């Protein structure tokens, strides 16, 4: 019997979607390991969160009331104490920015192996089999973890369906003893990254450019295409990092989520954090020299060719 403890994610008063995905992943793992699914929800309005998290398949929700927002020291201490009390085999956390800010510390403190950014799980006796990607999604791998002493696993967002239904979980307040002296970081606020001239989330058609464009001067070519088509220009992250386009043009996990009718990815590999922002597009077109680029997995139409040949030809079509 191996129980699972999954840790919910929330921010500024709202549970994040991945929390419900964690319930599904947690249930799957608990079933495979023949154990119970426990959830932990730490900081913020935990009672309210616990009610929402009480979905089908949840055996217990443990609330830790401490502060309003995420603090990695509080999370690390609370989770370690919950693990001591409940003795779950697996600790599941989201592979979110906050998950990555505490899960490695939890694994270190508990002296358990850590597997991050997992997209699939299976259990065989004391062995955890995790599926994860390497090389920016070009290959998938299976890693085996000796989980006799447990393991900490972070799951990729949007890989499991969100859990639904209402459960009959026991909701219990857990009295974690937080050592304030050991809290060495303080969240002082939040900042929204600046808006700007256009909202790419409103666009019907996006021509989106990635690192395949190579140089800032070449950007003109894609701008010309967007103009010719009456489309809006967006980009992957490296283009914004380089300062070639402003942050409000960035599509992705840390940029904007867009759902246009047509999304044309020009020289974009389709890394998971990019895909997080555009996979809801109605029709996805990829122009990429690499037939194995992960963007091909979600594209509806593709041209395996050099963008410097295809884009000028496309501009001609619309002039």
């Amino acid at each position, binding site marked *: 019997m191996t129980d699972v403890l999954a840790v919910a994610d929330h*921010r500024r008063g709202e549970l994040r979607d991945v929390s419900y995905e964690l319930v599904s992943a947690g249930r799957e793992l608990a079933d495979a390991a023949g154990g119970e699914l426990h959830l932990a929800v730490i900081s913020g309005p935990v009672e309210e969160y616990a009610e929402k998290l009480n979905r089908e398949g949840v055996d217990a929700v443990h609330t830790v009331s401490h502060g309003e927002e995420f603090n*990695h020291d509080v999370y*690390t201490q609370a989770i370690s104490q919950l693990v001591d009390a409940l003795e779950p085999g697996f600790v599941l956390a989201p592979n979110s*920015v906050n998950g*990555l*800010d505490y*899960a*490695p*510390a939890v*694994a270190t403190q508990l002296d358990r*192996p*850590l597997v*991050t*950014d997992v997209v699939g799980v299976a259990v065989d006796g004391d062995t955890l089999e995790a599926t994860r*990607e*390497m*090389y920016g*999604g*070009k*290959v*998938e*791998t*299976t*890693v085996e*973890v000796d989980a006799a002493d447990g393991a900490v696993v972070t799951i990729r967002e949007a890989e499991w369906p969100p859990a639904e239904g209402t459960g009959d979980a026991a909701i219990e307040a857990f009295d974690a003893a937080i050592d304030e002296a050991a809290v060495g*970081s303080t969240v*002082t*606020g*939040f*900042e*929204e*990254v600046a808006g700007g001239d256009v909202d790419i989330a409103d666009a019907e058609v996006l021509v989106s450019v990635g690192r395949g464009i190579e140089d800032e001067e070449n950007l003109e070519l894609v701008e010309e295409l967007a103009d010719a*088509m009456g*489309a809006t220009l967006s980009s992957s*992250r*490296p283009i*914004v*990092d*380089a*300062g070639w386009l402003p*942050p409000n043009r960035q599509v992705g*996990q*840390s940029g904007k*989520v867009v759902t246009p*009718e*047509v999304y044309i990815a020009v020289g974009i590999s389709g890394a998971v954090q990019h895909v997080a922002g555009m996979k809801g597009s109605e*029709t996805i077109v990829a122009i990429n020299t690499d037939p194995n*680029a992960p963007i*091909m*997995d979600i*594209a509806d*139409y*593709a*041209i395996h*060719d*050099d963008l410097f*040949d295809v884009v000028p*030809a496309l501009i001609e*079509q*619309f002039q």
Partner: protein
Amino acid sequence: MKVLVTVKEVATVDDEFEIAGTEIDDRFLGADLNEWDEYALEEAVQLTEDGVADEVVTVTIGPEDAEQTIRQALAKGADRAIRVWDDALADVDLLDVGAKTAILEAVVAEEEPDLVLTGVQTGDDSFGATGVALAADLGVQWAAVVNELELDADAGVASVHRELEGGVEELTDVELPAVLSIQTGINEPRYASLRGIRQAQRKELAAKTLADLGLEDDDVAAELTLTDMYEPETETDVTIFEGDASDTAGQLADLLRDKGVAQ
């Protein structure tokens, strides 16, 4: 103030490749300085230029081949480099977070830096966890996914922005010493100048074994075993436009006109 920067040489994969067992066949692999580490290094070098730090040391876990990449880091302004390798590591398919952390911890114990900068993740195995695990191991503070850094060395505080999802940043004060994992876009990494490249040849690059660091093979025993590697199955039925550029552009233009999204 001394800054230690972790620098990894990552494998890059050609457009076309073949898998041999649980790895990509060598013929299809290249090598590069990990993208995220490049920003971490630049941040450290800028700290010296601003007079906040007085030494930048890089640490790399990697075989002798990696020295080319390490020289790049030296050419971009690191003062000296440490490279750790051992026969015990050569046989490991996938160096997991625990093993990397054990090695880096031993280097930190020798170097006693005031600040450690790592990349958020590496482009090949992308665990995204080494920085935070290292901090926890060392018992110092940390912050993951930092895209803005202001150091008050006198007060012993790093004020950082952590880049969360959806265009939101978290502002956090972190007590020093600390380990920060650095996100791309925090700065503009420089190209190595010719002078930098020449100077890099003369900078110290110390090779160390596990024994040099007081570690045993057991300390780096892998907890994770890579058992399979394959190309992911595509989820959609993608229609591929065939032909030369004018053909494919024509087909795509027709599609867009059919959809009524372009004239």
